């Protein structure tokens, strides 16, 4: 028989159990496998992989950017990137800049000089990210951005594109200053933490930003030409291919070349455009044999794979039905086997020595700097060719027996079809055209922005296939992100009104592109 005493004991136990359990709730709701803090090295690795491996993407995403650059056509279906369709962009990359802030917050324990390197990295990451965003849309949030956690600001105001560029240039100056006083830091997959190389990268990138401001040389706030000369004369920039800002791939999981065939079902779709191939043929450029593979039909017709005529480019503006028919017939050049067969492929650079030399050649032609444009131009071409040759194993299917030896590379820039001739505008066209050849399957989207900036090389417009509205022109910007339109409407509408008369249209001309 259970007595009243025992009954009340049960009640007491129940209450005690209830109350006692509450004290361990905090422990129960804390993830034992979670990390409340990290190290600056880990954040640095993440940031550097973000702008390289993540942005370069892989498989179809990798090739999508090169469709915009008009190097690649795609036979799977009518791809918007190939037919000039641009929609909304995203500011999703801004979340990386919070990692930048956290990284700086964790450097207090480190040596001053090592901390300087991390801080230099942080300014560079910010400048790089804001530059990419403003190049796509125009005005962006800059001074009020990234304050969601610190200040609770989830509706940042938009700065003008000019204010953003001034900010970017100042941040690159600061990055240069910090790397100059920096020491080797850990977590760097590109330069192994060498601050001198980073300093060169930061300054070379600043040159690229400045050349994009070429319409604004008269502006006294920007001082474009003055800054350009200051960097060239007083600061270190890329001196050889060893300084390239490039990601080197290898045969390990998640580190293979982004279009390697393993697990890649998209190898069957790409075709190389005639814009590239015809230009390579016109200048007798051996890079044709390293970039593309011969057309099956032309080989059957009797051409050998070391024949220029075995290679056939396809018009990127051809309507999809025609493209599909050509693909089925086999009479086209696909990408070279080294991009799909070699697990390490070739390193992919975001900024190369060759591109910097082309920047200097253009600045010389424009009269910004002293120096001989042809010298810079030749150095650029040779740097680009050398880089391709250095990363191609000696196998016929990769070079088709048209090997670019030292003598060939030395002589090529001075050949009649290549060397700089004519008036300034023609020389600039040649420089940009050679830059175009050098960024095949490198520096994603660089060719698109250079074409937007200069008009070179000329991209075809075919109203029958062009998906831009109106069909007689190419789009020159992206629309603002959907999360800005839905959740920051007041500020984004203000920016759209002051720049584009209220019309967030892909054909509108941003401040950067106006004279």
């Amino acid at each position: 028989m259970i007595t009243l005493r025992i009954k009340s004991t049960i009640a007491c136990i129940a209450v005690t159990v209830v109350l006692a359990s509450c004290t361990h709730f905090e422990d129960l709701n804390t993830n034992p496998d979670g990390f409340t803090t990290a190290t600056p090295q880990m954040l640095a690795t993440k940031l550097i992989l973000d702008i390289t491996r993540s942005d370069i993407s892989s498989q179809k995403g990798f090739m999508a950017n090169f469709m915009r650059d008009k190097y690649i056509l795609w036979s799977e279906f009518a791809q918007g990137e190939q037919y000039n369709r641009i929609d909304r962009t995203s500011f999703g990359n801004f979340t990386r800049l919070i990692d930048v802030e956290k990284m700086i917050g964790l450097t207090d324990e480190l040596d001053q000089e090592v901390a300087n390197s991390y801080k230099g990295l942080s300014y560079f990451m910010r400048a790089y990210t804001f530059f990419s965003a403003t190049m796509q849309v125009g005005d962006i949030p800059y001074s009020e951005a990234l304050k969601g956690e610190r200040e609770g600001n989830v509706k940042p105001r938009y700065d003008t594109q000019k204010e953003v560029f001034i900010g970017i240039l100042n941040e690159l100056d600061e990055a240069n200053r910090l790397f100059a006083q920096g020491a080797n830091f850990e977590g760097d997959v590109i330069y192994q933490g060498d601050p001198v190389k980073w300093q060169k990268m930061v300054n070379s990138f600043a040159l690229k930003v400045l050349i994009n401001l070429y319409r604004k040389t008269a502006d006294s706030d920007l001082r474009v030409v003055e800054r350009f000369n200051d960097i060239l004369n007083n600061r270190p920039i890329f001196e050889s291919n060893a300084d390239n800002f490039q990601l080197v791939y290898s045969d390990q999981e998640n580190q293979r070349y982004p279009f390697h065939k393993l697990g890649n079902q998209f190898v069957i779709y790409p075709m190389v455009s005639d814009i590239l191939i015809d230009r390579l043929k016109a200048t007798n450029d051996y890079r044709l044999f390293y970039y593309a593979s011969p057309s099956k039909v032309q080989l059957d017709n009797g051409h050998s794979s070391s024949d220029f005529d075995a290679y056939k480019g396809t018009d990127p503006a051809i309507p999809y039905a025609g493209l599909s028919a050509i693909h089925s017939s086999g009479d086209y050049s696909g990408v070279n086997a080294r991009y799909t067969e070699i697990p390490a492929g070739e390193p992919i650079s975001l900024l190369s020595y060759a591109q910097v030399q082309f920047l200097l050649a253009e600045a010389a032609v424009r009269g910004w700097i002293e120096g001989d444009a042809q010298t810079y131009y030749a150095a650029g071409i040779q740097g680009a060719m050398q880089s391709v040759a250095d990363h191609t194993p000696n196998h016929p299917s990769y070079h088709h027996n048209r090997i670019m030896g030292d003598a060939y590379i030395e002589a090529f820039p001075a050949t009649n079809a290549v060397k700089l001739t004519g008036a300034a505008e023609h020389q600039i066209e040649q420089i940009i055209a050679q830059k175009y050849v050098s960024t095949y399957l490198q520096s994603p989207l660089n060719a698109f922005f250079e074409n937007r900036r200069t008009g070179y090389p000329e991209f075809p417009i075919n109203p029958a296939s062009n998906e831009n509205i109106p069909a007689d022109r190419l789009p020159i910007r992206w629309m603002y992100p959907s999360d800005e339109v839905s959740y920051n409407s007041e500020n984004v509408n203000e920016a759209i009104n002051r720049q584009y008369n209220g019309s967030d249209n892909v054909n509108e001309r941003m401040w950067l592109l106006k004279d």
Partner: protein
Amino acid sequence: MAGLWIQNSTEFDESPDIRLRGGSSNPLLVIDGVPYGNMGLRQIAPDDIESIDVLKGATASALYGVRGGGGAIIVTTKSGGNGISVNSNNMFFAGYLALPEVQTSYSAGLGGSYNSIDYVWGDKLDVGIMEEQWNPETKQFELMELTSRGRDNLKNFLEPGIVTNNNISFARSGDIGSVRASLNHVYNKGQYPNLKLNRLNATISGQLKLSEKLELKSHIGYNRSMTPQITGAGYGDQGYIYQLLMWTGPEYDVTKFRDYWVVPNEQQNWHYKAWYDNPYLIAYEKLYGRENNMTNVNLTSDYKPFEGAKVTARVGYDFYSNEDTRRNPPGIFSTRGWHANGMFGQYQSRGFSLNTDLLFNYGKKKLFNTLDIDFTAGGTIYRYEDQSLSGATRSGLIVPGVYSLNNSVERPDVWTSRYGKQVNSLLGLASFGWKDAVFLDLTGRNDWSSTLDITTRSYFYPSVSGSILLEEFFKLPTWVGMWKLRGSWAVSKQDLGVYATNVNYDISQGAWDGLNTADYPSGLNTSVIKPQTNRTWEAGTAIYVLDNRLTIDLAYYNVFNYNRQLSSTIPASSGFTTTLINTNETRVRRGVEVSLNAGVLKTRNFTWDAAVNWATTHQYYKELDPVYSPDNLWTKVGGRVDNYTITDWLRDPQGRVIHTNGGLPQQGQYASAIGYSDPKFIGGFTNSFTFRDFDLQLSFDGRVGGLLYNYTAYKMWDTGSHPDSDNQWRYDEVVNGNESFVGNGVKVVSGSVSFDPYGRITEDTRTYAPNDVPVSYETYARRFADGRFGATDPTFIKIRELAIGYTVPRSLSERWGMSRARISLTAQNVFLWTKDFRFADPDWNADSDLTSPSQRFIGLNLNFHLANDNQPNN
């Protein structure tokens, strides 16, 4: 019953999704008073179930806490009884309900040429064209004619499905208690090769009367299921329908590919070089195996200290230990989630849930001669923990054919997780009945949850409900037997997910050259989160007329949802993409449920009972949050929540599709809402007939209205397998080389248009002319498809069940020693009619993952009970 929406999956061994009152999750399963955390309907043998009750609305919340917010299904298992019972249920496959059809006139390829690379827009079949094709018997390429030899590939690949469910149970009752044991076995053979499942369930339950005042009950169950292979269904899984129906052509005969190796464990007998694999290889070599074990224990003691009082102490515990394995050989092409160099992965998970209750109950009838009272008060502790440990090979297998983590090219990947939660509760219930005519129930419950911040951890939620039997107060006409009015008001609350308040870096091991990375979360987590609240009030009436031959039940309910916990989208320019907050956006769900039960006909030998139910419910925005609610045209106060949005084609003022100068339809750049996804209403109609010893069940149900993404039919336009694409324009293009198709719509002759940020036209100077540009039919069909981006009206009616049974008369069965014998024939998923939905069964409410063809089953059920010493049976 009204408002209960059961969405059946056609997938193998997938349990139905049950929704009550349009709620967003499955209701809580309560077995013998224990709301187990891990037990599901599949772990209970149907023959162990005595009764099932459904608790709607927020009443379940009061009794079972937060987890009962979506309603509760109360299962009571059998106990007591005498004798041996045998039940055998066998279901056989009997045809398909919604089998996708494909065109069988054109081969694989693109642009009208044969090519075994991708797509089905190839050359014409059966007209004598010769092409190099793979011969699966000689395993090499040979010149063969292009014919539609594979026109029945899917039908030939599918195998008959069988589900056998056998149960035997023993029971014995006496003066001091009873024991019951039951053993259940299910064998499920699926529609595809190598798709099978074995499930074993064993339970013992007993009751013991220790004294007049103390009774003990116990129930122990063990459940084990094993299946070697569940891969192959759905689109994301790159499975059989993906391949056989949508993406590969009818020019190869799949039955000739049963011998799927060229080099065992290394090279498959197959002609594609990307995306697709030999389906028999997928069935027998690309394996996803599953082994589940679950144990549950329930110990209950009831003590009656004095008359009218009862103290219940109860412990309910379930424990599971599962292991999944995945493996594939090298050389496969459908690699999403698998590895092209071969892989083996082992995924172990285990966990438990523990419910303990201590409840005091006191009830007294006829207090002051008129009042019945019943009080319950007590406490509950609910706790669960889950953990997992997984490993997978990295970069492939060293030695082909050996599927083990020891055989990994690079060091295997390992990952782990642990979760735990506890909720303590105190609850009280009070029921009053006055003169058996007026009833009032009050409940109150306070929870302390580990997943909330310490300042918001404790939360209280009450409810009130009452009913009146009108016939006790008013003189009603004689044909009205009973007329009840009822109403209720209830609050239910919800806490956060486990670890939702944690802010943790996302660490990745060995991201590059052995370096690790860390990423700060992009979800902002700076607010203290309160529990989310649903306030429901309901009013209803039930009227029983004509000698209880007809019952009509009407209910109206209103659920106000506020303090919603939301990972709300914020602009990424703030540095974060979402923020966890209690939004000020509130919603209201309103619904009506009607059900009719009628004993239509009742004679000495024949009865006919019918029930009809009908329910409709919609959810609306009540208030919007100025900061966190999205700013667009369809999110507005008083507007519906279930907007179905697409980015539509550009259209002229008359709604005709605008085409480019190249003759292709032009898609706009702004989203718009074209309708609602919820059904207008759902309904059911069940009939029960008895004639002497025979009985017949016939039930229908269906839904009307709403929109659902008909992925199967939509995607088939892109791939080239849609039967409607087999028409004169395709023939003209492929065979004659003519592009003769002209899109139906207009083209812009002059002028331009500007849009505001919402997509509304601000300025329009366009002039139009009818579109007259001939284009490639293939290009047009792949882009335009059905013209609606797959948005389809999923209205359907199904004959869900047709069953005929015969119960052997007692006099006859007892002569054979059985107290009961019954045999019945049942057919499930008998018939489906859809208004617009094609090639898939809209019953599952989500065709976006390419459901497998719905199967019709015919079953045979035998049930015998052998009594013991003529004791009362169960």
